[in-house]
C-alpha cells in the first residue's frame, strides 16, 4: 500500500501543536521513533525547556512474558516534571500500551500539570482508553503488520510497513 510521506505528516503535526505552546511546555519523545520526532518538533517550535527522551522498557506490561529488552537506553528528562505541560510524542499509536507505560514513567519524575499525546500515525486497534490530541494521520492497516518510522543518515524520516506473518 502507499504510505504517506513522514516529513509531510511531521510538518502538519507541528502546525497542529504550534497554537498550544506555552512557557512551561516540554516535549518528550518515546525511544526511538518518538525521540526523533520530539527533537524535530522541539527545534521547529523553539521550545524553551530541553527535550526529554523516555525508554519505557522498565515499565512495559509484558516484562514477565518476554523479559527485559536487550537494549535499554537511559531515560532523560532534563527539566523539572512538576507542573510542566508535557507533550508526549510517539511515531505510531496502536494498542496504547506503550503510552500507558510512558505516562506511568513520567509520574515517577514528578506531577506534571498536564500530559498530551502527539503521534505521527494513529493506526487504531486500541486496547486501552487512550487517545492522541495531535495526530498526523489516521491509517487502517492489516492487523499482522508493523508500521515503523525510519531515519536515514541525513536525518530524513520515512515510514516502513512490514508484514509479521511468517512462512
Amino acid at each position, binding site marked *: 500500500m502507499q504510505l504517506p510521506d513522514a516529513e509531510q505528516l511531521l510538518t502538519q503535526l507541528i502546525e497542529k501543536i504550534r497554537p498550544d505552546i506555552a512557557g512551561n511546555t516540554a516535549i518528550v519523545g518515546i525511544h526511538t521513533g518518538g525521540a526523533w520526532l520530539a527533537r524535530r518538533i522541539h527545534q521547529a517550535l523553539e521550545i524553551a525547556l530541553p527535550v526529554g527522551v523516555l*525508554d519505557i*522498557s*522498565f*515499565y512495559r506490561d509484558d*516484562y*514477565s512474558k*518476554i*523479559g*527485559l529488552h*536487550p*537494549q*535499554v*537506553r*537511559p*531515560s*532523560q528528562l532534563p527539566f523539572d*516534571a*512538576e507542573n510542566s505541560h508535557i507533550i508526549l510524542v510517539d511515531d505510531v499509536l496502536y494498542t496504547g500500551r506503550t503510552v500507558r507505560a510512558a505516562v*506511568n514513567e513520567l*509520574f*515517577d*519524575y*514528578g506531577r506534571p500539570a498536564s500530559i498530551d499525546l502527539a503521534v505521527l500515525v494513529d493506526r487504531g486497534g486500541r486496547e486501552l482508553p487512550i487517545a492522541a490530541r495531535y495526530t498526523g494521520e489516521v491509517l487502517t492497516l492489516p492487523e499482522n503488520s508493523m508500521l515503523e518510522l525510519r531515519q536515514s543518515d541525513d536525518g530524513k524520516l520515512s515510514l516502513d510497513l512490514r508484514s509479521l506473518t511468517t512462512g
Partner: protein
Amino acid sequence: MGVHPQLNKNGELQHLLTTEGLPAVILRHILDTAESFTGVTERDVKKIPLLRGKSVFNLFFEPSTRTRTTFEIAAKRLSADVINLNMAVSSQTKGETLLDTVDNLSAMHADMFIVRHNQSGAAHLIARHVRPEIHVINAGDGWHAHPTQALLDMFTIRRYKQDFHALRVAIIGDILHSRVARSQIHALTTLGVPEIRVIAPKTLLPAKVERLGVHVYHNMVQGLQDVDVLMMLRLQHERMESAHLPSTEEYFKYYGLTPEKLALARSDAIVMHPGPMNRGVEIDSEVADGTQSVILPQVNFGIAVRMAVMSILAGN
C-alpha cells in the same frame, strides 16, 4: 544443567553464580542495563515497577552490611518485597540443613534468593536444587566468587576508563582469601583487559595463580609502574587461620597504598576498594579520601548493577 549451571537452555542468564565462563555479551548486557538504572536515583520516585509482586529473600549466612544493604535497596528500587534472613542466628543453628531451609522458603513463594555463605559452592548447591522459576544470585561464597562485586567494579572501570582493551589493571593485597579477586580476574579477562597484575606477598597468593593469566609481582614499586586501575583488597583477618604475615604494620610498610606508592602508577589512575577498608593496613587515608579514589562511587554503582542483574534474571 550442563557446563554453565547459570545459563538456561536458551543461553540466557538463569542464576548469577560466578563471572567465570560468563560470555562477554552477557557481561556487557548487565553493564549496559545498569547504566539505565543509574538515572533512577536522581528521580522524584526512585522506584521502577519491574519486580512488583516478586519476593526476594536475602539469605546471609555470613555477616555483611554493604552487600546485603545494596541488594536490599536494589530489590526495593525494583518494587520487590525483600525478606532479610540473618541465617547466623536462625534455623541452621537449630540443625536444619541448607536445602531444607531453601525448601521451606520456596514454599513461601520466593522468586529469588540472594545467598552469602562461608562455604564455596553454597549458591551453586541451591541453584541446582530449586525449581526452574526461582533465580539465585551468589553474594559471596567462601574463597570462590563474588560476581556482583566484580561486575560493579567493571562498571566503575568502564565509567572512568571507557575501553577495557587498553588497560593495565593491578589487583593488590590478599588474593589468597579473596573471592572478589577471583571474580575480578575472570571478568577483566573476558572483557578484554590485556594486562592484569596481582601484587601481593607470596603467602597471600594462591598456588599457581599465574594460570589465571595474570602477571605476578611481589613488589609495589615494580608492580604499580604504568598502571591505569588499582584494585585494592582488604586484608582478611577473619580468614587467616595461620600466620601469613608478620604484622599489619609490616604489611602496610610494603603493600599499603600510600600517596608515594600511588605516584608510581599513571597520573590518571583510579583507586578502587570493595570495602570494608582497613585504613592504615592496606590503604592510607590520604589515598582513600584522595582525588584518584572512586571508592564511594563504587558503592553507588553497586545498586544499579544489582538492579540490572535482578531484572535480567527475573525476566529470563
